[in-house]
């Protein structure tokens, strides 16, 4: 009895005194319980049990109380649970003499029971949640069994297809698939079922209004190893719009690509970071390089070596600021010849974010034509000017001999005698002719002079303001070449000059300083104006560019079409014009230069005169 795992005690007599108490029960009622009354020594027995003890004794009928909670033992947390059994027992005479108390510790079972109860409640909650979720999500969920029959479809399916809720799901579903897709879908589903894998395919399903809509069907098997899967659960999503959109986009993209590839022009696109991700067909034909060889920045390698750094800077600037990219560059063709191109790129926001679209347009022919036209125009202008000058000089120079002629004639008339009777008439005719010659020459000179004056009206001009105006016009070039322009302008007396001419002088000098820059350093131009000690206004333009070889002291750079740097564009008339303008106003121009270091032009605006 002592080794029993259950607690055993006898409660003797109507007073219910503890008789025999085994070890297990001692833990419940205390060590010194034997001989005591239960009421005096209840230990940890639950009050409900104590309350019914007398009744059980009175009735003499066995009683079982299940899962009674006893207060926990000192130092223990969890309350213990016991099943109590009360059995009346009798003495030899058959009289009721006491109760046998059996206590079985069922704490663990009770705990487990409670846990499973909680689990069931939780499962029920989860199930409810899952149901709400599946029935409210904008997609159809379904279950298919191993035979390929649909056994469950969420209410969305009935709403979508317009089928009666009592319709036979297994029979109806395949019939609602578009006839063109049906066999494929059934085949793929069956293959997946046989292999025990999931599936993922698209097909058209008939909507309640009879229209077929593209659906995406995805499914996974429910696996309980080692058994083969018995159910496939999946979801059906309507992807009609996305599919149409992406199809339209694919179509559109293919058309645009085709268009871009068939245009004889270099076309490319770049990512927001400025990395080129598409070159059209013509680009590869023109450059003779594959798209891989060109790479994300390979275009810059096609430019003239001298132009590469500036183009790269410009591109980085555009990428950083989002400003359009534009420039004229030499682009190498597959045969090694360089042709002028206008490269333009603009940033555009399409559906997938920012992108750059660029073109390179061949302007070699236009460029050549422009150059030829410019040369011809300059030649014409010069010829016209030379002609003017010639006429003026000729008329001027011829006036002197004509005056001499008149003087000689007067002298002749005064001293010589004529016998001819018609002499008077002849003399007057000669006089008349001389007068006519003189008038004609005078008129001619006047005409040319007034014409010129009309062309080039002079005015009082502030040189400082005009320099700033010209620099403003060259702003783009200055930024492009990262030039530094330093102005050291002291107030110079106002010049009386033709505005157009003065501007032409300043423009020519400043733009030359920028144009003939040294490739190894950004241009640094110093514009300096001052007065000579004798009060002569002077303008100095100093650069750090290529410099010129001044081997001929007879100022060769002022000759027409004399070009110092054949690789830089120019017509060679700039300095010639400057010199003519300055000298025609009575000034002169000096030049000092060192090859590879820079050039300084000094303009003396007026003739040196002590009175100025």
């Amino acid at each position, binding site marked *: 009895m002592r080794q029993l795992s259950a607690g055993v005690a006898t409660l003797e007599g109507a007073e219910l005194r503890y008789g025999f108490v085994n070890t297990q029960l001692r833990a419940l009622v205390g060590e010194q319980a034997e001989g005591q009354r239960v009421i005096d020594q209840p230990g940890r027995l639950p009050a409900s049990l104590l309350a019914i003890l007398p009744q059980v004794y009175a009735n003499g009928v066995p009683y079982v109380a299940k899962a009674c909670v006893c207060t926990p033992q000192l130092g223990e947390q969890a309350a213990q649970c016991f099943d109590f059994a009360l059995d009346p027992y009798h003495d030899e005479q058959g009289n009721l003499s006491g109760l046998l108390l059996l206590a079985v510790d069922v704490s663990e079972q009770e705990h487990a029971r409670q846990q499973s109860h909680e689990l069931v409640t939780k499962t029920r909650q989860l199930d409810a949640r899952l149901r709400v979720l599946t029935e409210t999500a904008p997609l159809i969920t379904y279950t298919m069994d191993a035979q390929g029959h649909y056994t469950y479809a969420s209410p969305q399916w009935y709403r979508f297809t317009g089928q009666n809720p009592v319709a036979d799901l297994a029979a109806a579903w395949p019939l609602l698939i578009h006839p063109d897709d049906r066999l494929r879908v059934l085949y793929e589903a069956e293959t997946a079922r046989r292999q025990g894998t999931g599936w993922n395919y698209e097909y058209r399903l008939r909507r309640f209004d009879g229209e077929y809509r593209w659906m995406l069907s995805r499914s996974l098997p429910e696996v309980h190893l080692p058994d083969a899967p018995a159910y496939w659960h999946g979801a059906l999503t309507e992807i009609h719009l996305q599919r149409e959109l992406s199809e339209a986009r694919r179509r559109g993209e293919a058309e645009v690509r085709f268009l871009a590839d068939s245009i004889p022009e270099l076309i490319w696109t770049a990512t927001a*970071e*400025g*990395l080129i991700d598409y070159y059209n067909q013509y680009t590869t034909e023109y450059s003779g390089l594959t798209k891989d060889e060109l*790479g*994300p*920045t*390979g*275009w*810059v*390698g096609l430019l003239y*070596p*001298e132009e*590469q*750094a*500036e183009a*790269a*800077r410009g*591109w*980085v*600037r555009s*990428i*950083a*600021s989002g400003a359009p990219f534009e420039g004229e560059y030499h682009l190498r063709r597959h045969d090694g010849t360089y042709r002028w191109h206008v490269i333009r790129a603009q940033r555009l926001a399409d559906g997938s974010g920012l992108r750059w679209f660029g073109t390179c347009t061949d302007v070699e022919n236009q460029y050549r034509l422009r150059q030829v036209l410019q040369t011809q125009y300059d030649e014409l202008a010069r010829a016209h000017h030379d002609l003017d000058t010639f006429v003026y000089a000729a008329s001027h120079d011829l006036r002197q001999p004509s005056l001499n002629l008149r003087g000689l004639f007067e002298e002749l008339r005064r001293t010589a005698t004529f016998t001819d009777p018609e002499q008077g008439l002849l003399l007057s005719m000669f006089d008349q002719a001389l007068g006519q010659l003189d008038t004609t020459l005078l008129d001619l000179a006047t005409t040319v002079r007034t014409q010129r004056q009309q062309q080039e009206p002079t005015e009082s001009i502030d040189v400082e303001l005009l320099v700033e105006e010209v620099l403003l016009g060259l702003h783009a070039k200055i930024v492009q070449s990262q030039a530094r322009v330093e102005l050291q302008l002291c107030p110079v007396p106002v010049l009386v000059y033709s505005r157009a001419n003065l501007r032409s002088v300043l423009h020519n000098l400043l733009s030359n300083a920028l144009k003939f820059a040294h*490739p*190894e*350093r*950004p241009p640094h131009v110093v514009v300096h104006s001052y007065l000579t000690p004798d009060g002569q206004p002077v303008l100095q333009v100093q650069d750090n560019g290529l410099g010129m070889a001044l081997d001929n002291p007879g100022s060769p750079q002022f000759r027409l079409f004399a070009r110092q740097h054949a690789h830089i564009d120019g017509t060679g008339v700039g300095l010639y014009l400057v010199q003519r303008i300055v000298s025609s106003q009575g000034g002169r121009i000096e030049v000092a230069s060192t090859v590879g270091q820079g050039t300084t032009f000094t303009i003396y605006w007026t003739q040196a005169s002590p009175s100025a």
Partner: protein
Amino acid sequence: MVMLGGATGTPPSKPKRLLVRIVLIIYYPSMKHILYISRAVRPLTDEDLQQLLDQSRRDNARHGITGILFYSHGNIAQLFEGEDGIADNLFKRISVDGRHTHVIKHIDKPITARSFNEWSMAFHPLEPSGFTALQGFVLPHHMPPTPTSLAIADALLVELVRLAVFGPDPSTPYQQAFPTLPRS
């Protein structure tokens, strides 16, 4: 922090090294450079970055890898150069590294000479004070101009990638980005 920047592996054994040297003398090893950009899975802390810098510098120095790594706000870009096999191995390891995703390789091509003489990193630490003295660390906008031996197309690419990682520098935009000297 090994994968992102460093080439790891055991150095070749002695006889093998001798053989390698002989081969080196006979055939000058062909080199290549690789540029990729990627996104860090989570932002790297100053400690992460410093650890990456230390480890990578050690490993890369041992394997003759030179180049530069840009990091800013989860954006990563790295240009590195080295012998073909080593560079390829390094990239293979980098591309499967779990600490970053969206690895896109933009350049992978042979070079004749190195453009960088060491391996370094450029990033904005939260606490710059401790970093400025570190070997191989550069602040993004105090970087030396791209080396002149880099073809201009590649220099442009590095510049664009730097721009993509760090954004434009408002103080000195595009200054010194490209040397004006024409390069072939």
